[in-house]
Each structure stands twice: as structure tokens, then as C-alpha cells.
């Protein structure tokens, strides 16, 4: 464009005939801006002089003004400013384009259309242009510290432009939402939030847009993010309106209007209602027909409903559960307008995992018609499991909206020992709506803030003293329920001996039934010092027919019982085992009619508890089960393994893998266990359940493992997937040895081995051993060896199956990747996926690496596509807790990091880590943590970054992980040290790299991807070092290494590294003042980086690349102008956050924030004192502190600084 152009929105840029002009002084630029914006009104010299040079006397101020005007005209043409003795103005006839005028013009034209709600296409275009014009805040970086008047003017202008921008964004968002163009709407809303992330309106709009686009999880995530930011920055909760809206989303009111939901919100496809929950854990215990009513306790419980928490704390066997069953029974009978929603959750030791706890908790609350059930489950899975408060908040809000009273019972709370869960329950209690009540039944007091709750009158307690049976209760229990006829004296004796312990009394009652010498029994019992259970169990059992005694003892090995299972287990003779001679066996087989039914035992009061309404599954009371098991162990220990074996057979027959393997392990029946594990491993690994398999193997002796070549191979395969590849050799050796032994000896000769393998199974073993060895070779940095080993196998085993072929090509693909032949690697991996499809197995790793290699080529978009597709395949399968998704997720985290999409990167890393719970692969845990470390570093969270990196370091220590992981952790350390400016460690690291490099230059070897990562980091270190010490001679070394890296990277086709190498080359050239060469390299870099939307590579090296790109943009006819501007924009966004952190070393307290807010509203000290109910002196003190912290001389300046820091 001919003439003068001025860009005031953002860092000021002034151009004359397309060339960027740098005015002599900042003040000249400020003066020009002031004149230009005041145009066409003339301004007096006097005003200008006092405004810009307030500290000078008139004469000097006038002289300065003259000098500045002269310099402006010198640079921009003699006609631009016209002045006479009095006045100064911009020449209205000059060709002078200003972005601010354009900005206003566009807005005026939009306003002229006078749209009521949504705008037309033309307006959308104009608004988009407006938004594009706004590169940043008005005259960014051009503060004049010595001219408060100018500062104030600038501040007002800045506010007004920002206000216009925000309203343009808002109009655009509404328009896009109306049109169903969700992606665009979201992009604008994100833009707004990134500019003003503490602004409630912006945040609410973004959340709303997400919700309307059907991306509920993103909406909820944004809400959490906002809450977190508010907490971190201001220590405040969100404003009422956002909260209200949040509840609306939860209630499902904020539905999408039209258009399709965006596909990227993959998680919403999961159907959580299909969760395989153990329904028994949520089963409300039924009241046994023979019970002693406890009206006093019921009254106490009813009173307890006035408080949020009822705690029932007493040892085992005091009738806690029975009392609750009675109470619930009565609650259900009362004719309330709306029935109670009773939610029951029986805890066990496994519930110490917060994720599982929350999953069951929400499932228990399904009794209440929660609107958000699926949503909450999704948040539980996707969010950071360390902070359960988010899903709990959602639950609370949902519960609050119920017009029904809710009773949540947590039974057996003593099993919980995870502080996170205790904290979660405390949080629930502190925010519990009036219609919800929690009952905790436990054997020992939970570490909740009980005394605080007591003091506030929020706790009602029922303790052992309340639960003990009184003599009245005992009389009723024994004489009426059990039909005995005891005297008061006898009752007192029993009361004294049992201390009102209900379980003891029940056993006593069972013992006394049908006994003639009751007085003698009571005397003997009360005189005994034996443990009540020991004494009474013996008595009670001896009162039962032998058949029942046998039944009880033998079925006690089962965690849960049903009639079919019990019959099967008891039929020990069927197994043709020698029966224990000590044990009385009936002479005749029991006929169908005489068979013991669990329901009968329940009626006898034998501590057997139904687990469902149909009375199919039962369990023994914990106390009784322990007692029976110890007795079984001490009397018929030989029988225990046989019983477990029978149980394993029953579970196997009924397709319950875990039941069968658990019992088989308990039976120490290694042969069956081996067979069962071998059968279920593929299924469990495909479903991502590595943790379960590892648990089995921990109980399985290695000696036994070595007997089965098939299992050896399967376990080795699992180790390879779990980052334990250094442990596979002995397993592979053994498997091959057994197979070749079998082959050479022939089947007839060796029966002892019991391998019983089919020809096909032998083929699998012979194929898998070299494949896994090849994989290990890749990990050990010997890709050529991997190629050789697998190539021999490929030729030597023509009968290889598709699944093994798929894996073989995967290993070869990886080897070629390491060898730096990416084209070939892609071909091999694609071949691998074809065979995988043929085999019917999922073989997720192949897809993941296909995505990975695509990333290395530098094609980020297709790489993301492949990985997200791979995740998607899985959601369709509808399998839960799929741990092996973690690998895709950890790499997606990298890809989004590369694009500076830190939020998405963060979520994926966190999800990967959450999934490793079922898939504890050291490689993945290390990768995801390293990724987290980089993300946190980018977010300036140094502590968090260090913490994550240390975790990654722990994972890789002393392990053979993939070479990628090792390099990745190394370079992440360097990034951390650079941030720390820890030159000592950096120098050490530099030294090691240089020696590696020197060894490589002698042999002139190819540099592989992993060394390349380090060497590129070395160059970055050199560049940053030179920025510090200015030893420019280092650039020469940089340049020659970069040249070598470039050739190497080009030969391998690694666009991913080439783009960084070219960027660094450009930076070095730029520093050496070889500009045109620098810009040429930068164009080369952009050519690869732009289609992939790379961002972090530029941001990570900081000012070096920012300066380069700024200058790049000032040339005429810039090729990648749009992209370069985008990069600068990202720079600005991230620096804004950084600036805030740096400029505010001391955070404001919440009180100071209150006062700051009032300052903005323009309150006087007295008004503030009145509103905050403080003295004026205190207000003054706070204001003084605020000014100090904000480094401001006046209140106006404090407000300006606070705005700049986005504090208000």
C-alpha cells in the first residue's frame, strides 16, 4: 500500500510504502498515535508539551515536542504533521491508513444493519475482519512511565477497543451457534477466553457454546478450568451466574439447538450404563423375618435425619446392618408424599481406588433419577482422579434438584483407608443439600472431622453402647424369636457374658435350640474364659446335623455362594479324590429332596445373608466366614485345595474367568491355572486388563510358568507391552527349548512334559519368539539385528498366521523407523495393519505406531486422525477400563502439545495415566509423565513440571524402555534446566552430548531419530547459551551441526525434525545478520510446519524465534504471512500469562481483591470502609499494600496494571 499505514491495535507497527519504520523514540510513536487518534481536531502545542513532558519546564518541553515532530516528519514524509506556532495536527489530505479507523468503520457498518439477534453473512464477514484487526491491546508495550496523562488516555482507549472486540466476538459466537457452525463458534469463544480468561461472561459463553455443540465434557472441563483459575489467581469461587449456568448444563437444559455435534468429542459415545457393576454391592439388605424390633434406636435414627450425617460405629456383629434394614423397611412403609430414595453401597477393600469408589457411588445413586449419571461417570473417567470434587459437585447439584428425600448408606466403611476418599466424603458432607442424608456404618471411627461435625450439631451417632442388646431385648430375642423359655436370671447371665453382643447371642440361641440341658449350658458358658465365638461355634455347630456342619465348613471357602455352586463344590467325590478318612461322609448320596438349600440355612439363623432379591447369591457374615474357614483349615486342611478346585471348575463352566482363576490359584492347581491363564490372557490383554493378568501371575510360580511354552510366550508378549522387555529372554529361551525338544523327541517319547500342543500352537510359539526378540533388539538400539532376526523367521516359517505376520511387520516397521527409513516403515506398518485386519485381532500397537511414524514424517493432522480413530474403534467396542488406550492417548498428548493446544494435551496425558491403572506399562507411564512435564513447563508451572518429570525418571530408571522414551526424558530435563538456568547441569549434559557426537563424526554414522532429538536440543542449548554469554563464535559450531542434521533428517524423510532444524538454522543466520538466508530457511521451515499447525517449536525457543519472525514479516511479499502472524499471536497469548506471573510476585489476598474491585468501581476510602465493614485506616493499609504489590504509584495506575495483568 502506498502512503502511511499505522497498526495501533497490538504492538504498534508503522509502515511507509510497505516498509516498516522505526521511529526514533517511543515518545514519538506515542505522540503520533495521540495525534492520529485525535485527528482531525488540532491540538495545542502547550497541551502536548505538558502532556508528554510533564517533568520539564515549558521551554524544554516545547523543544522536545519540536524535536519529536521533526523526527516523525523525517521518517514518514514532510507533509504528515502540519503545525503552526500554536497548533499541531495530522494532515487530513495525507494518505494515512489506520487500523483503528478501519476497526470503527467495520463496526459501524455492522451496527447500521441493526440486527436484533443474529447477524447476516455480510456482518459475519465484517466482524471477522474486525477481530482479525485486533492483534492485541491498544499500543501494546508503549507505556510512558513519565506521562500519567498519556497513560490514562491510552488506558481508556485500550478499554474501549477491547470492549468493542469482546462484543464483536460475542456477536460472532451467537451467529455461529445459530448457524450450527460449532467449531467456528467454539474457536471464537476460546479466543475471547484466551484474551480475558477471568471474565465471567467470556467463560460462560465458552462453556455455553461447548454445551450447545453437544460437547458436554468439554463444557464441564472448561468450567473446572475456570474454577481452578479463579481459585489459583483470585482464591474465589465462580460467580453466581456461571454457577447457575453450570447447573443448567448438568440438568441437560442447555441442549444443542441444531446442527451436528462435533465429532471430536469422542468420549460422549461411551455408554456407561453397561458397566459391569457388581449389583450385590448395591443391594439393600432385606430384613430377616426373625428380628428384634428396636424402637428406641429407630427413634434416634429418625431424629438423626435432622442432621447430614448419621454414624453407626461399633465392632462386627452388633447388628448395624440389621438395624439399618429395619429402619429402611419402616421408611419405605411410611406414607410420605414421595417415597424415599434409598441408595446402598457396601464397601470392600477394592473400593479404596477413588475412581472405582466414585463409579460405584454414582451407580448406587442411580436409585435417584439422576439426570447426569452418564455425564458424571464420564467426568470420573476423564478427569484427574486425584480430585474427586468435580464429579462430587456435579452429584450434589443433581441431588439438590430432586424433589425427593435421599438416604445414602455407606456400609462397612472401615475398609476405606484412602485419604482422598475421606476428603471426598468430607466435601460431600459440607455441601450436602437438605434433602440428602448420609449414613456411615463402620467397625471403627472414620478419619472424618467428627468432632467438628459434632460441635456444629451436624452429626448423630449410634455407638456400641446403643447397639448392645439390653436384657429386655435379649429376653425377646431368645424367648420369642428363638422360642426358648429362659428365666430372668439366665438372661442376666447371658447378658453379662456376651455384653449384649448380638452375634454372640445369636450363636448362643442356635446352640441352645433343641438342647435339654439349657441351664447347664448357660452356666458352663458364663463360667468360661474362652473366646465367645470359639465356644459357641463349637456348640452351635455340634447342634446341627453332620450334613449341615459339613456344608457350612466346606462352603466357607467361597466368597459368594449359590445353590448350584455349593452342590458342585460339595460333590468332592466326583473328582475321585481320596476323601479325608477323618471326615464323616454320609453312606448314601444325598437325594435331590434332602439337599441343603441356602434359604433353609438362612432360616436357621446361621449367619447367611442374601445378596439379591431373587435369593440366588448369598454370603456368610464376615465374622462367621472367618470362623468357619479357620476351623476348616485346622480340621480338614487336606480338603481345602480340592474344594477350591471344584469351585474353579464351576466358575470355568459358567464362563467366569476371574472366579475360576482365583480359586484355581488358591487350590495351587498349577496345571489348571496355567491352562486357564493361557486361555484368558489374549482376551484380557485385548480388553486392556493387564493389571488383572499381572495379579494372577504374581501368585503363579515361575517354575510352573516354565513348563508351558505357550504361556511363556504369552507372558513375554505381555512384558513387551508393559515395558518389561528386559525380562523376556528366559521365557523365550524356555519356550523354544520346550518346543524344539518336543519336535525332536517326537510325541510318544516325552509324556512328562505334558505340552499337548497342536501344530498350530507350535507355529505360533516358533513365530512369536523371534518377533519378540526383534522387538527387544529395536529397544536395545539394534534395529538392523531386529530386521535380520525377523527376516529369518519370515522365510523360515512359511506357515506363519496373520496375527503373527502382523506383529512381525510391526517390529520391522519399527526397526526401519529407527534405521531412519520412514517410507519403508510406513509401508511395513500398513502391511501390519492389513494382516491385523485379516487376523481379526485388534493389535492396537500397530495403529499407534503408524500414527507415530506419520508424526515423524511431519504430518500432524493425519497422525492425530489415525490415533483418534484408533481410540474411536474402541469406544465402539464398548469395553470398559481399557488400559491399553493409554498408548494412543499419551502420543495424542504430544501431538496436541506440538500445536500448543495445552488443554487437550493435558487431558490426554491425564487420561493415559488414568488408564495405566489397568495397563501399568512403564513405557506409557514414563511417556505420559514426560509429556505432562512439558505441558506444565509451557504453562509456567515449574513445580508441577518437575514433579511429573521425576515420576517419568523413576519409571525409566534401571529399565530397558524404548529408545524414544529415554531420549524424550533426557531432553525434557534439558528444558527444565534451561528454565531454571541451571548452567552447571546443562554444561555437564552438553559435554556428554559432544562426546557422543564426536564418536559419531569419526565413523560418520547415520544419526538416528533418538540421538537426533538430543542433538537438536543441544543446538537449542547453544543458541540460548549464546543469548546469555554473547560468544557469537559458537554459531559456527551450531551451523555446521545443523547442516549435518539437515542432510541426515532429509535423507530419512523426518519432516518433524527437519522443521525444527530449519528454524534453528534461520535463527542462527538471523543472529549472524545474514537475514535473507535466514528468511529462506524460515520459509523452508514454515512450508512443513504450516500444514501441520506446529506451534510449540517456535514458542519453546522463545525470543530468538519471535524476533526472527517479526523481522520476517517486515519484508515485502511474505509467503507465509498468515501463519507467521498466528505464531506471533500465540506468543502474545502465552506471554500475557507469563507476564502476569512475573509481574505479580506476591499474589493479592482475597480481601485485597475485594478492595481492588471497589477501586475499579471508583469507591472512596470511606465508601469502601462502609461496604466492607472495616475502618478507613484498614482500607488505607490494604490500598497501600495493593499499590505496592502492583508496583503502582497511584490508584489509577494500580487499576491499569491490574487490568493489564488480567486481575480484574
Amino acid at each position, binding site marked *: 500500500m502506498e502512503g502511511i499505514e499505522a497498526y495501533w491495535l497490538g504492538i504498534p507497527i508503522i509502515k511507509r510504502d510497505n516498509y516498516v519504520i522505526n521511529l526514533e523514540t517511543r515518545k514519538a510513536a506515542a505522540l503520533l498515535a495521540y495525534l492520529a487518534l485525535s485527528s482531525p481536531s488540532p491540538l495545542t502545542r502547550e497541551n502536548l508539551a505538558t502532556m508528554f513532558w510533564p517533568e520539564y519546564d515549558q521551554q524544554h518541553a516545547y523543544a522536545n515536542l519540536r524535536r519529536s515532530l521533526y523526527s516523525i516528519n523525517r521518517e514518514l514524509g514532510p507533509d504528515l504533521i502540519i503545525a503552526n506556532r500554536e497548533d499541531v495536527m495530522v494532515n487530513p489530505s495525507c494518505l494515512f491508513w489506520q487500523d483503528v479507523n478501519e476497526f470503527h468503520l467495520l463496526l459501524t457498518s455492522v451496527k447500521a444493519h441493526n440486527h436484533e439477534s443474529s447477524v447476516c453473512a455480510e456482518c459475519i464477514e465484517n466482524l471477522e475482519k474486525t477481530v482479525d484487526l485486533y492483534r492485541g491491546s491498544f499500543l501494546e508495550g508503549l507505556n510512558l512511565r513519565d506521562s500519567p496523562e498519556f497513560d490514562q488516555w491510552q488506558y481508556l482507549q485500550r478499554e474501549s477497543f477491547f470492549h468493542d472486540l469482546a462484543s464483536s466476538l460475542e456477536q460472532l459466537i451467537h451467529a455461529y451457534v445459530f448457524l450450527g457452525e460449532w467449531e467456528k463458534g467454539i474457536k471464537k469463544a476460546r479466543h475471547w477466553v484466551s484474551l480475558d480468561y477471568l471474565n465471567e461472561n467470556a467463560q460462560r459463553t465458552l462453556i455455553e457454546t461447548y454445551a450447545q455443540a453437544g460437547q458436554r465434557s468439554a463444557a464441564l472441563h472448561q468450567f473446572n478450568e475456570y474454577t481452578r483459575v479463579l481459585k489459583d489467581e483470585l482464591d474465589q469461587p465462580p460467580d453466581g451466574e456461571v454457577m447457575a449456568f453450570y447447573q443448567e448444563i448438568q440438568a441437560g437444559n442447555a441442549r444443542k439447538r441444531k446442527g451436528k455435534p462435533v465429532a471430536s468429542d469422542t468420549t460422549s459415545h461411551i455408554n456407561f450404563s453397561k458397566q459391569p457393576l457388581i449389583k450385590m454391592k448395591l443391594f439393600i439388605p432385606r430384613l430377616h423375618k426373625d428380628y428384634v424390633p428396636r424402637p428406641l434406636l429407630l427413634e434416634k435414627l429418625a431424629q438423626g435425619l435432622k442432621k447430614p450425617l448419621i454414624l453407626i460405629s461399633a*465392632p*462386627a*456383629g*452388633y447388628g448395624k446392618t440389621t438395624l439399618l434394614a429395619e429402619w429402611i423397611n419402616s421408611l419405605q412403609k411410611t406414607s410420605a408424599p414421595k417415597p424415599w430414595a434409598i441408595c446402598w453401597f457396601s464397601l470392600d477393600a477394592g473400593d479404596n481406588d477413588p475412581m472405582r469408589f466414585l463409579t460405584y457411588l454414582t451407580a448406587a445413586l442411580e436409585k435417584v433419577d439422576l439426570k447426569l449419571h452418564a455425564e458424571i461417570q464420564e467426568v470420573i473417567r476423564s478427569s484427574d482422579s486425584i480430585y474427586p470434587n468435580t464429579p462430587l459437585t456435579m452429584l450434589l447439584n443433581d441431588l439438590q434438584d430432586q424433589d425427593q428425600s435421599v438416604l445414602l448408606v455407606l456400609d462397612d466403611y*472401615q475398609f476405606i483407608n484412602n485419604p482422598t476418599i475421606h476428603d471426598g466424603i468430607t466435601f460431600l458432607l459440607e455441601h450436602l443439600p437438605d434433602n440428602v442424608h448420609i449414613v456411615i456404618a463402620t*467397625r*471403627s471411627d472414620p478419619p472424618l472431622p467428627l468432632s467438628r461435625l459434632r460441635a456444629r450439631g451436624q452429626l448423630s451417632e449410634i455407638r456400641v453402647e446403643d447397639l448392645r442388646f439390653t436384657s429386655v431385648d435379649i429376653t425377646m430375642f431368645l424367648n420369642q424369636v428363638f422360642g426358648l423359655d429362659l428365666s430372668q436370671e439366665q438372661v442376666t447371665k447371658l447378658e453379662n457374658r456376651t455384653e449384649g*453382643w448380638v*452375634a454372640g447371642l445369636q450363636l448362643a440361641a442356635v446352640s441352645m435350640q433343641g438342647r435339654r440341658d439349657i441351664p447347664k449350658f448357660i452356666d458352663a458358658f458364663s463360667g468360661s*474364659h*474362652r*473366646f*465367645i*465365638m*470359639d465356644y459357641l461355634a463349637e456348640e452351635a455347630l455340634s447342634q446341627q446335623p453332620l450334613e449341615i456342619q459339613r456344608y457350612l465348613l466346606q462352603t466357607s471357602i467361597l466368597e459368594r455362594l449359590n445353590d448350584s455352586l455349593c452342590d458342585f463344590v460339595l460333590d468332592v467325590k466326583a473328582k475321585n479324590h481320596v476323601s479325608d478318612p477323618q471326615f464323616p461322609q454320609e453312606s448314601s448320596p444325598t437325594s435331590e429332596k434332602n439337599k441343603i438349600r441356602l434359604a433353609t440355612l438362612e432360616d436357621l439363623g446361621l449367619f447367611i445373608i442374601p445378596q439379591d432379591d431373587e435369593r440366588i447369591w448369598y454370603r456368610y457374615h*464376615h*465374622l462367621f466366614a*472367618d470362623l468357619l*474357614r*479357620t*476351623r476348616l*483349615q*485346622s480340621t480338614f486342611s487336606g480338603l481345602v485345595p480340592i474344594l477350591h478346585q471344584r469351585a474353579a471348575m464351576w466358575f470355568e463352566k459358567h464362563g467366569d474367568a476371574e472366579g475360576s482363576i482365583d480359586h484355581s490359584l488358591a487350590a495351587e492347581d498349577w496345571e489348571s491355572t496355567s491352562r486357564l491363564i493361557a486361555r484368558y490372557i489374549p482376551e484380557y490383554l485385548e480388553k486392556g486388563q493387564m493389571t488383572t493378568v*499381572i495379579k494372577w*501371575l*504374581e501368585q*503363579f*510360580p*515361575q517354575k510352573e510358568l516354565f513348563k508351558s511354552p505357550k504361556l511363556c510366550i504369552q507372558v513375554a508378549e505381555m512384558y513387551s507391552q508393559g515395558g518389561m522387555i528386559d525380562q523376556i529372554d528366559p521365557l523365550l529361551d524356555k519356550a523354544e527349548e520346550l518346543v524344539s525338544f518336543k519336535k525332536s523327541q517326537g510325541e510318544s517319547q516325552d509324556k512328562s512334559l505334558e505340552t499337548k500342543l497342536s501344530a498350530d500352537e507350535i507355529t505360533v510359539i516358533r513365530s512369536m519368539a523371534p518377533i519378540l526378540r526383534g522387538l527387544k533388539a529395536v529397544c536395545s538400539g539394534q534395529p538392523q539385528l531386529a530386521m535380520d532376526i525377523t527376516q529369518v523367521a519370515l522365510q523360515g516359517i512359511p506357515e506363519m498366521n496373520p496375527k503373527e505376520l502382523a506383529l512381525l511387520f510391526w517390529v520391522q516397521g519399527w526397526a526401519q523407523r529407527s534405521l531412519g527409513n520412514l517410507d519403508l516403515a510406513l509401508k511395513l506398518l500398513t502391511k501390519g495393519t492389513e494382516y491385523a485386519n485379516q487376523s481379526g485381532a485388534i493389535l492396537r500397537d500397530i495403529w499407534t505406531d503408524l500414527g507415530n511414524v506419520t508424526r515423524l514424517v511431519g504430518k500432524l493432522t493425519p497422525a492425530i486422525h489415525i490415533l483418534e480413530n484408533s481410540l474411536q474403534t474402541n469406544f465402539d467396542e464398548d469395553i470398559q477400563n481399557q488400559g491399553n488406550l493409554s498408548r494412543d492417548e499419551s502420543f495424542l498428548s504430544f501431538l496436541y502439545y506440538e500445536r500448543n493446544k495445552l488443554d487437550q494435551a493435558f487431558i490426554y496425558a491425564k487420561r493415559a495415566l488414568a488408564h495405566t491403572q489397568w495397563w501399568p506399562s512403564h513405557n506409557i507411564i514414563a511417556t505420559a509423565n514426560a509429556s505432562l512435564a512439558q505441558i506444565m513447563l509451557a504453562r509456567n508451572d515449574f513445580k508441577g513440571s518437575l514433579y511429573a518429570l521425576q515420576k517419568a525418571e523413576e519409571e525409566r530408571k534401571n529399565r530397558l524402555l524404548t529408545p524414544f522414551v529415554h531420549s524424550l526424558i533426557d531432553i525434557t530435563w534439558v528444558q527444565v534446566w534451561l528454565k531454571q538456568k541451571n548452567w552447571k547441569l546443562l554444561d555437564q549434559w552438553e559435554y556428554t552430548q559432544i562426546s557422543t557426537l564426536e564418536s559419531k563424526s569419526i565413523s560418520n554414522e547415520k544419526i538416528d531419530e533418538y540421538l537426533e532429538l538430543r542433538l537438536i536440543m543441544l543446538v537449542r542449548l547453544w543458541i540460548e547459551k549464546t543469548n546469555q554469554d554473547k560468544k557469537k563464535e559458537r554459531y559456527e559450531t551450531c551451523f555446521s551441526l545443523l547442516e549435518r542434521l539437515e542432510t541426515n533428517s532429509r535423507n530419512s524423510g523426518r519432516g518433524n525434525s527437519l522443521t525444527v532444524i530449519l528454524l534453528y538454522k534461520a535463527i542462527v543466520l538471523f543472529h549472524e545478520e545474514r537475514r535473507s538466508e535466514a528468511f529462506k530457511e524460515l520459509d523452508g521451515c514454515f512450508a512443513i510446519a504450516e500444514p501441520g499447525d506446529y506451534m510449540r517449536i517456535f514458542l519453546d525457543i522463545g525470543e530468538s524465534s519471535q524476533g526472527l519472525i517479526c523481522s520476517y514479516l517486515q519484508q515485502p511479499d511474505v509467503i507465509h504471512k498468515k501463519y507467521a502472524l498466528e505464531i506471533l499471536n500465540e506468543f502474545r497469548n502465552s506471554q500475557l500469562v507469563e507476564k502476569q506471573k512475573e509481574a505479580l510476585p506476591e499474589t493479592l489476598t482475597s480481601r485485597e481483591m475485594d478492595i481492588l474491585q471497589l477501586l475499579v468501581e471508583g469507591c472512596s476510602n470511606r465508601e469502601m470502609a462502609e461496604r466492607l465493614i472495616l475502618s478507613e485506616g484498614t482500607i488505607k493499609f490494604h490500598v497501600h499494600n495493593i499499590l505496592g504489590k502492583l508496583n503502582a504509584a497511584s490508584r489509577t495506575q494500580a487499576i491499569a496494571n491490574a487490568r493489564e495483568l488480567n486481575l480484574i
Partner: protein
Amino acid sequence: MAYKPHNNLGSAYEIRVKDHLEKHWSSYFKGCSIENLDNGEVRLTTPNIDQAGLHGVLNKIRDLNLTLLSVRRTQN
């Protein structure tokens, strides 16, 4: 297979509870020796265990509703 005993062997504890116990409970109490005393109390002596192990034993005492009287570390 992955289980490795910790080098620090912990220490032994003497636990007293009320009411005599049958010997067979020692398997329930993870190898504790059980000695019924004349005063009607039981002395449970644990093998060398760490704090978590001790809490495990105490939980088991609680789960049987035994009355816990005292816990004392005997030696290292």
C-alpha cells in the same frame, strides 16, 4: 513373582486381648503365636512385621470383636 520381602524386617509385637483363643486362630492371625494366660487374657506374639502388618493384625482383632487390652513392641 514380583514380590520381594523388604530388607527391614520390622519388629515383633506382643498384643493382649481378652478371652482365650483356640490355637487354630494363629493362621487367621498370620502366623502369630497364641498363648492363653491364667488371668483369662491371651498373649498374641506377632512375627517380625512392619507397621502396616501390625495394623492388619489389629484390624483382624477388631473384625472378630475381640477386646484389645494392650500392644507392646518386644524387640527389633
